[in-house]
């Protein structure tokens, strides 16, 4: 395997922390970046699951959001209402990581 190819594969394998160099950021920025990435991933998960929720569950979701529910309540809601929610989260997280790695690889 060529060195370039090896390097490229290593890049793809990088986890999000390494990928976004979060560990090199100052603390304030670090938290912000982590939260920001989390939000993006959460959004992509919602894009997948919200269209499939039943009407009453959507209403419940809306209420949770409007009422400013605690994060654990929100997560509990999704775990309860969405079968295989974890798999969807994992998939979207992996998509995010893979796409980001690919873009950064192309740039570098």
């Amino acid at each position, binding site marked *: 395997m060529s060195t370039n190819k090896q390097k490229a594969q290593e890049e793809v394998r990088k986890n999000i922390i390494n990928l976004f160099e979060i560990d090199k950021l100052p603390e304030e920025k670090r938290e912000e970046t982590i939260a920001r990435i989390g939000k993006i991933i959460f959004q992509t998960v919602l894009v997948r699951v919200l269209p499939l929720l039943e009407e009453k569950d959507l209403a419940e979701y809306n209420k949770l959001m409007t009422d400013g529910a605690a994060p654990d309540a929100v997560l509990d809601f999704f775990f309860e209402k969405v079968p295989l929610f974890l798999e969807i989260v994992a998939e979207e997280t*992996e998509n995010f990581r893979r796409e980001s790695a690919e873009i950064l690889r192309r740039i570098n």
Partner: protein
Amino acid sequence: MDQEPPKDINKEERKRELQKQLAEARDRQRQRDDADRDDSRELHKAEQERAALMGTGNPSGYPVDNNFSPREENEWYKDTPTRQGMDLEALAQRIQSEITGLPEEERQQRAIELLLAEKEAWNEEQGGAKEGLRKFDKWWDGLEKTKGGVALKALIGGALITATTVGLGVAPVSLLGVGFRLTSRVAAATGLNMALTSERVRKWLTPKEDTGSPKTLKEKVLTVQNLKYAAMIGGAGLIFMMGGAQVAVVGATGMALRFGVNQIIEKRTKALEEKRKNLSIRAESLQDNFDINALAAHLEVFEEEYGKLSASLTRNKWAKNLVNGAITVGVGLGTMAVAHHGADTTHAPKEVPDKPAATVTHPHQPEVTTRPTAEPVVQPKEEVDTSKVTDWKKVYPPGQPTHPITPEVTLNPDAIIKPGDGIESAFIRQIEHNDALATKLGWDGESDLHKFAQGEAHRMARDYGYIDKTTGEEVRVESAGKIAYEIRTEGDKIEVIEKSIKGDILDTHEKGNAFEKETDKYEKLWTKPEETANNILKPTNTYGDMAKDAPGALPESADTTPAEEVTYQKSEIYKDDAWRNRQASEEELERTRRELLEKMGTKTEQPHTETSMNGHTEPSPGPEAQVGGHLQPKGDYSGDLAPRQVEALRLHSEFIQNNNTYLLSDSELWETYEASRSDLRFLFSSENSIAWHELDDMNASALLTQVDSGTDSAQDHLVRYLHVLQNFTEPKLEPRRGILGIGAEHVKDFMARAMIQLKHNGNLEVFQESIRK
């Protein structure tokens, strides 16, 4: 006269040639990428069109179908729209143009910033959930206004980031080697630890100064702050816990250290505080090589505290969160890390909660001496030497929910290892006596629950680190009546809790745990004796305890010698027809099943040869080969068969290894298998009869040459059956004879091969009718 060109000219030419090749390769790659993108667009377009035709379309192309409830779980998951990927190349170009000209040190950060912005914009464009996303954004932003909101966001972010590195549910567990797991575990932990150990999170989580002094350990643990956080971990933590303990445990390590160790141990042991400080520094290190062993060592201490608390807390809702949140995870780390890194860490026995001192040594840390700090919560009123109990029904009457000796302790009696039990036996009882658990494990509510329990118990033993998948080595229990292997479920998470008879938690196993090479002190490793040329040709004792009862069997040894090791003489057994016709017990069948699975597992490592009728030895496909439809003895099955059917066929590998030369489909193969079981029930009244299992490994060729003695013996019944079966085959099949008896086809193999041929020729039903007539 031609002159040889100078060497550097050749070099230049070669360089040009290589450059040309590279350029061509890049062009080809680009074309492939373009084609992929075109395919992707086509697919998306088709999906949109289909959605529109179905009336479920929406501007984003994601089908809106608010009716998932009636669907099966997998169907629902399948129906979630697949997101159209971003045009990565275009995006990369955009970012590239933006960062061109920037100083090197700014380029990466700017690129990251742009990338995140692009992704945010991309999400916002997805119309299918626009309203929901808008509300989410508002909710997310609103978190900052709450107490600890920023920390919460970081924590959730860390949790989600963590999910990727372990590949939760993305990569099949089987693909994740131990090395990979360890690497990703540590790397993944970094994300969450970073969030947990950040200054802002620390401030939010640090409890206020206590105004009063708590009186009991329970009060100290059940602080509002702890409960609040445990509840949250119980939610956010689910993300990790349900899919992969490795990340979860490390991720929660910061939690365990800060809230468990901090509040319980730190206050009591000044010395430990100093050591822990060093440890915390390492825990907070953002390097991938931070020391998981040290964390595990500390969690050992934490685990002890947890063990003492668990009995008193089970009925408390908050306590439940606590148990199933950070602490459970923490305990998981202790056991798992010890399993993986045991060679580097020596742990004091954890079985004795009231021991005077536990010394934990670690290569990176001189020595940590801790003293159990908590007053015992549960004190057994009396102790019975359960290893001497012979009538277990008296000790644990059926249906009694709790352990009779220590009523305060919730201990499932089915989980306790009894004389003659393996760990799987305890699993089988628990699954069989708990429909909810069985259902959670995949039981369909209709099939034979006992068989299902046997299958699942074995699978669990393998998946949870009690059987080495490669070598077949097993973890066994030293003595009966002292240890329980309790299956505990919470949400989708299933774990095995090892408890002492007093209810103290000794160890925790989770799915995906590596084989426990370094057993706990109440366990031992057991390796199945290798088959020798001598015993290969003899009937093997696959019936464990039954063999002990059989005429001619060796006397039962005083200790718990595995029954498989007992040898006996077949001729002696056959003297007693009553015994011969006895049905195999459940445990015996389970043992048989396990052996068969082991055989299949080891066969993959060996070269396969078949001996043809004319004596030539030919290579055969071996068990990994695809021989019928897509059914193989190992691997994933995506065909028409239910998991239990796949499991059954794996168990009866004679139907799938070398015999399915007619390439039956999976469902046809299953029908053939079912027909064979039906015939066995017809011949021996049960496919599990000992008579059949004594005959099934016999040399089929030799059996067919025997003269029918006209008796009513099981053997004569089988000989007659095989003759009829053989006569129905077209062309007529002969059993493989092997060389000097080695490699000869066994009865069960020949039977399977012949029945597969009958199925292929469409004669199977006629044959079965004929037999019954």
